[in-house]
């Protein structure tokens, strides 16, 4: 498990290559990258605050949970903080598993959980001044599909 919280930009290609290169016996690597979204072209910057110490603990717990549930061989969570420009990469996750279904599902699980269970807060800087981004109900609802009793037919092992 590789958990990194950093202010500096990261090289998506280099990270994905390094992640894939260190695997043995895995048949699938899935990566996801989150970008600073600028819906109406008016965003000047996205500021990301986090809780040093708790952030790393929370991300590690989420990654270990994913490893337990899907038996993935490895995971990377890289999340930035500080002031980011529109279209910059905020974060990435990568998962490695023997088969693709586990790698995809574990990556989705990591994303769903870190959106509302890892202590990050986004603030948008636009023409009408700075504004904290409100948490969305959909993000909280997204977690229910991973509950042990959710009967949606998704693989659990």
């Amino acid at each position: 498990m590789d958990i990194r919280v950093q202010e500096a930009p990261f090289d998506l290609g280099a990270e994905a290559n390094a992640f894939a290169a260190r695997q043995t016996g895995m048949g699938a690597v899935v990566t996801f990258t989150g970008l600073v979204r600028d819906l109406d072209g008016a965003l000047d910057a996205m500021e990301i605050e986090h809780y040093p110490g708790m952030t790393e603990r929370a991300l590690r717990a989420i990654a270990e949970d994913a490893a337990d549930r899907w038996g993935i061989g490895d995971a990377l969570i890289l999340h930035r903080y500080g002031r980011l420009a529109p279209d910059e990469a905020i974060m990435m996750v990568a998962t490695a598993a023997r088969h693709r279904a586990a790698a995809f599902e574990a990556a989705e699980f990591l994303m769903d959980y870190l959106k509302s269970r890892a202590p990050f807060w986004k603030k948008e800087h636009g023409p009408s001044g700075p504004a904290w981004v409100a948490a969305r109900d959909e993000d909280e609802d997204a977690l229910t599909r991973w509950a042990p009793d959710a009967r949606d037919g998704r693989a659990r092992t």
Partner: protein
Amino acid sequence: MMDVLYFAWVRERIGHPKDQVESEAATVRDLVEELCGREERYAAAFADLGALRVAVDQELADFDAPLGGVREVAFFPPMTGG
């Protein structure tokens, strides 16, 4: 002595990121009550507990969580990572 941390708009409303508190509060809710008695800006920040989340020693907790032996409590709005 306990560190009480604030993040995002909670930090902005209170005006600083951290207090060191000597408290006999038994639970998080009791601690909030003590803080609200300090100054109006605390009461403003804690006006709607439903809009806040709390972590006790860096683990998410609820407002009834006990504070015995706790070193760090943090208050913040719902998280918006990813």
